[in-house]
């Protein structure tokens, strides 16, 4: 292995295991997909991805994921703040509950949320009275994605807020800044990086999320048919080309989100010269 004088054994063995495993389980399936996708002619691809039903699908996924990620940024920050800064009864429970979406199978969450938000559901009835159809609509999809995404933001912000140097706030106070000003000018800028990365993770997860959304979406073509569901539908019709086209668009969106996130973080680091 690269370094001279390396004394720790096991390099070749672990390298072998890791390469074999990743090749078999990640690279091989990925290349099978790439191989198939690259077989598609440019014309076919354009025809597939510009199909109105498809475009509607990704715009819906994209829009709902974006809306949910914004809501999550707000509530995730709030929950992280409350958990780090305050002491109150039930705090441990609150802290544990935030992770429920990581632990609860998405399908279970999906049917539970749907039952809650249908017209006769415990929560749905209020929304329907206000004229907001929550089930089988973009609103419902967004609610499901908020459920799925909340831990990403809260868990990104929480440790950073916890480790935030208390003397920063003291310094601001001694310079005469009030609490709100201190929050806006001193604390929030420190939290931007974890907030953005939590947002991006929630957003990226939202675009690809299937289990928790598929039930509440109702899956009406041209209305509530999300991108992952399009893949499902096309596969059931054995239309592999269309499924692959949607998958390419979704992969591109995820990749874009991650690239933008990476670029942003690099820019922040460079500007402040860490």
């Amino acid at each position, binding site marked *: 292995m690269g370094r001279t004088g390396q004394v720790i054994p096991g*390099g070749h063995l672990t390298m072998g295991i890791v390469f074999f495993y990743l090749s078999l389980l990640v690279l091989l*399936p990925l290349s099978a997909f790439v191989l198939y996708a690259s077989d598609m002619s440019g014309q076919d691809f354009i025809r597939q991805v510009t199909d109105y039903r498809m475009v509607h699908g990704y715009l819906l996924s994209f829009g709902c994921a974006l809306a949910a990620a914004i809501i999550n940024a707000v509530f995730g920050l709030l929950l992280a703040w409350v958990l780090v800064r305050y002491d109150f009864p039930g705090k441990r429970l609150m802290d544990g509950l935030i992770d*429920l979406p990581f632990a609860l199978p998405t399908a279970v969450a999906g049917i539970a949320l749907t039952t809650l938000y249908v017209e006769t559901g*415990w929560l749905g009835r209020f929304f329907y009275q206000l004229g907001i159809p929550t089930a089988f609509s973009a609103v419902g999809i967004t609610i499901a994605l908020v*459920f799925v995404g909340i831990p990403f933001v809260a868990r990104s912000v929480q440790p950073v807020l916890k480790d935030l140097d208390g003397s920063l706030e003291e310094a601001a106070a001694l310079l005469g800044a009030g609490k709100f000003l201190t929050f806006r000018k001193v604390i929030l800028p420190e939290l931007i990086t974890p907030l953005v990365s939590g947002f991006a993770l929630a957003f990226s997860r939202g675009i*690809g999320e*299937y289990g928790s959304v598929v039930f509440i979406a109702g899956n009406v073509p041209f209305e509530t048919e999300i991108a992952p569901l399009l893949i499902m539908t096309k596969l059931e019709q054995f239309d592999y080309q269309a499924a692959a086209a949607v998958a390419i668009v979704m992969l591109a969106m995820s990749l874009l989100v991650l690239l933008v996130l990476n670029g942003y973080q690099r820019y922040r680091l460079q500007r402040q010269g860490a």
Partner: protein
Amino acid sequence: MEAVTKLAKPVAGSQSRFLKTETIVKWSLILTGAAFLVVMMILPLILIGVEALGKGWNAYLAALNEPFARKALWLTAEATVLSVVSNTIFGLAAAWLLTKFDFRGKTLLGSIIDLPFAVSPVVAGLFFIMLFGRLSPFYDTLQAYHIAVVFAVPGIVLATIFVTLPFIARSIIPVMEGQGRDEEEAAALMGASGWRIFWQITLPNIKWGLMYGIILCTARAMGEFGAVSVVSGHIRGKTNTLPLHIEILYNEYNFTAAFAVSSILVGLAVLVLILRNFVEWRMERKDDHEV
């Protein structure tokens, strides 16, 4: 000043009197957060319980005792155990490789490990369809030997492993990174074998990190839906995992049974959360000791 600053720290950091937002602000923030969690997390859990028991205990037990449900539970357990075991071996190897050695392409390797996180489960399922399904270059060979991967148990297991692949590696790597290489190098210089170093030095240091990864991996594996849904073909009693079984019951409007089966998964999820919290507490306590 150490003693004083240590004692003064929590005051300064978390609840310094002079910076503490007014009680009104504090409680409205707490209540907003609590309301959010009640609506988003607690209500769905209560609903599952209410719906599952809506037709009484007998209906509940009957739904759980039904052969298809039992089959689905077994398949879920099988896929989960296989994923956890294989991803543990992989995770340990990957963490060892990435933290104890320097080599070119390390970053790339890290990104490949993370890839399953970035891919939608449905797309992941699609990958396996492309690899083993009708369009696969190996399809004819597989058919000739009567090996079914897609729409069969192996496909479900592979898809589950793929989706949960990064969890354990990503839980151990930061812990091992924090440990550094000194202890292993010292042991190696004293002539300890690789296995001995691993069992006696590395493993005790990372055991809670490993537990953490295993818990996360278990939770995700038993609940995986999208990827498994694509490769399973939904064959009742054969390729249905618990989440897929729930979907079928729900779509047949058999809500009581759907929620009854869900309640098993809810129980497991709550168990996962409790274990996770316990392990996290242990890890923090270990950190405290080191400080």
